[in-house]
């Protein structure tokens, strides 16, 4: 069979075209058809970016949000890993405690958000706590899974060569867990972002929640779009960072 000519355009390029097309439609549609109180063309949002970054209070709110995400993330990962190891390494603890953890994981956390704010106030503490409450669970679950998947004959082989328990842990269990650990980190980051942003948006008297409410109530779509775009960019960057780390450290894992 004679070779068919491949597609005219590689998928990556086609994707970029599609995105550009979307932006063009948005620009044209918003410019000529939309009520400026509700919708603005992307060009205006880009202009508003400058205005956003010029206001030190907004910049500070964004900075605080990043701080909250990073803190919540670090806490989730460290505490989550410890709990995950404690629960997952021993069969009995796993079958007893893990179901409880999974139960907690399944609760709709949006309902207890007001509780967090009541307890911790409207400052960063509540948002960090809520972020941890979201992020800790995927870390625990993936850590447990990582420990669980260790094939027993790797351990047997090590012991037969005279490895002590500590050596077994550091040279077999721990390295084996690393891919799942990074997967847990990636999932944890996504969860922490959700938790922190949810909390920030809820608290409309401070932080970025204040500004989203302000821009929405004063019908300033360019500013709102700009702010959201900035936050989205931060979220995507953090997510991508975790995903790249996960890819890098999972290379030895068979498909």
């Amino acid at each position: 069979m004679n070779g068919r000519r491949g597609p005219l355009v590689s998928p990556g390029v086609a994707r970029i075209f599609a995105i550009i097309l979307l932006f063009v439609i948005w620009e044209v549609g918003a410019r000529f058809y939309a009520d400026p109180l509700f919708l603005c063309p992307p060009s205006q949002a880009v202009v508003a970016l400058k205005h956003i970054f010029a206001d030190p209070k907004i910049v500070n709110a964004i900075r605080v949000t990043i701080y909250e995400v990073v803190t919540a993330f670090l806490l989730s990962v460290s505490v989550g890993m410890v709990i995950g190891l404690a629960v997952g390494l021993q069969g009995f603890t796993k079958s007893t405690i893990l179901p409880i953890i999974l139960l907690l994981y399944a609760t709709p956390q949006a309902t207890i958000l007001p509780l967090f704010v009541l307890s911790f106030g409207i400052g960063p503490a509540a948002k960090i706590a809520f972020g941890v409450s979201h992020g800790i669970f995927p870390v625990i679950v993936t850590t447990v899974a990582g420990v669980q998947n260790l094939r027993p004959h790797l351990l047997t082989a090590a012991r037969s060569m005279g490895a002590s328990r500590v050596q077994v842990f550091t040279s077999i269990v721990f390295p084996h867990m690393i891919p799942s650990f990074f997967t847990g980190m990636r999932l944890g980051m996504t969860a922490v972002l959700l938790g922190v942003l949810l909390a920030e948006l809820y608290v409309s008297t401070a932080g970025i929640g204040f500004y989203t409410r302000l821009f929405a109530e004063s019908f300033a779509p360019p500013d709102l779009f700009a702010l959201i775009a900035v936050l989205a960019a931060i979220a995507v960057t953090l997510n991508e960072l975790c995903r790249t780390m996960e890819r890098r450290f999972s290379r030895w894992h068979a498909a």
Partner: protein
Amino acid sequence: MKFKMRWPQRLIQLGVLIAVLGLWYWATLPGGINQLLLPPPAPVFRNFWNLLTTSSIWPDLAVTVREWVTAFFIAAVGGCTLGYVISRSAYAVRVFDPLLAGIYSIPAILLFPLYLLFFGLGPGSKIAIGTTIAFFPVVLNTIAGLSYVDKAYITAARSMGANDAQLFWSVMLPAAFPVVLTGLRLGCIVAFLSILGGETISSLAGLGHRIVSLAENMESAQMFGNILFAVLMAFIINGVVSYVEARGRRGMQ
């Protein structure tokens, strides 16, 4: 994750539950934790029982359920349709599948303030965020289900003379069904959770709104009762939807 649960584990879990309840009771005795922050168990459960047995929660419940069902319906129809259209062309799949997966990785809750601007504080903004977030698992799973049908089935069908229509309806659709069903389950659950989130952030009615206004009015016992109710609802939905999915999968396997 499956594990063998025998009575020692069950006993310990029961023990944990009792310990938590006991601790709760003890901590909220007079002189303990501020009752506004953590009310004692008795009024909370009394409240919870009230919610279950009276119709006080029904108006708000109706609002939330209506938002949820609408959002899921739109996401399901839209997602399946778009997923089907994209899956028709392997090239389209290669272009759009990573794009959609990438967009899904942006925390969609960020769109909520925009929806508030657009649709106001009423159900519209909640339906919008629910639809947006539920759309992705549905469309991604529909694409996956339809594009990754085992080639062996298609070869066999073609060798027996199946035309395009027969191939689609009798082979690809049933083969894709379990995966699409999973996408629908995820979409259903995620729609409910994101609508609760939206109501919490800003709304005029609904379950989330109830909890927020009770918090603002410092009605802790009632708030806790309502939280328990919402958690119960989430568990029931999860259970029912998972059951439906499992039945659906079994019927097709």
